[in-house]
């Protein structure tokens, strides 16, 4: 679990440094590789582009399914208090909703 927490933290930091590139290499058997090459060719992508985009899609899906928001004690107390006694409504939010209601049809 601590290893997982570390990875999550790192992912959060990495999000804000989008340009940084790292290498990920792996061994796969030849039939799997040719299959990936074949699929990549159909979608006009290089094998690494193909693997990365497909893997990221799957990763995001898995993250959404598994990631609940778990708040540490210190934040939980603040969160709980706010939930019981939400901050007073904000004029900017009121204006935002009013502008929306006048300009947007929601279906």
């Amino acid at each position, binding site marked *: 679990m601590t290893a997982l927490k570390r990875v999550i933290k790192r992912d959060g930091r990495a999000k804000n440094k989008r340009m940084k590139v790292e290498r990920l290499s792996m061994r796969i058997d030849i039939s799997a590789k040719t299959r990936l090459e074949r699929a990549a060719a159909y979608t006009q992508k290089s094998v690494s582009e193909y693997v990365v985009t497909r893997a990221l899609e799957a990763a995001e899906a898995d993250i959404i399914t598994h990631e*609940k928001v778990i708040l540490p004690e210190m934040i939980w107390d603040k969160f709980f208090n706010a939930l019981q006694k939400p901050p007073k409504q904000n004029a900017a939010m009121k204006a935002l909703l009013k502008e929306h209601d006048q300009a*947007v049809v929601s279906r």
Partner: protein
Amino acid sequence: MYIVESLKSQDRQSFDCGEESLNRYLRERATQDIKRKLNRVFVIREERKDQVIGYYTLAATTIEAAKLPPAHAKYLPQYPIPAALLGKLAVDKAWQNKGIGKHLLANAIRRIQSIEKEMGLHVLLVDPLTDDLAKFYVSVGFMQFPLERRLFLFMNNLED
């Protein structure tokens, strides 16, 4: 007038918000995510036009305490607390700085409010990409907690 509705077959091929991952998401993945019920995707367009000028995604999530104080439990009819996550929000470059992003945020709130009564959904979360965006969300009432990147909007007190 603008129309905001679920992503179906609206024209999204030329959508460009300046952030390639968000463009690609709309072109290539959004439909799959909807089918797999991971996300709901809503797009904004001008009335009588088909071109997508912005979009956002909503997903369901839950919030819980790492360690729930027993005294809190009785105040929480639903626990873990159901919440909505505004996962992505993007506006086409040609339409930026015209209030479209604000309309999208407001639309997400309105949509959640309309299901709130049955679902008891009171919290909207965002995970802003930049500090400027975070400042904007805070300025309209999202709460920021120390050491937590995500921002929280408590929706049970938005209007009088």
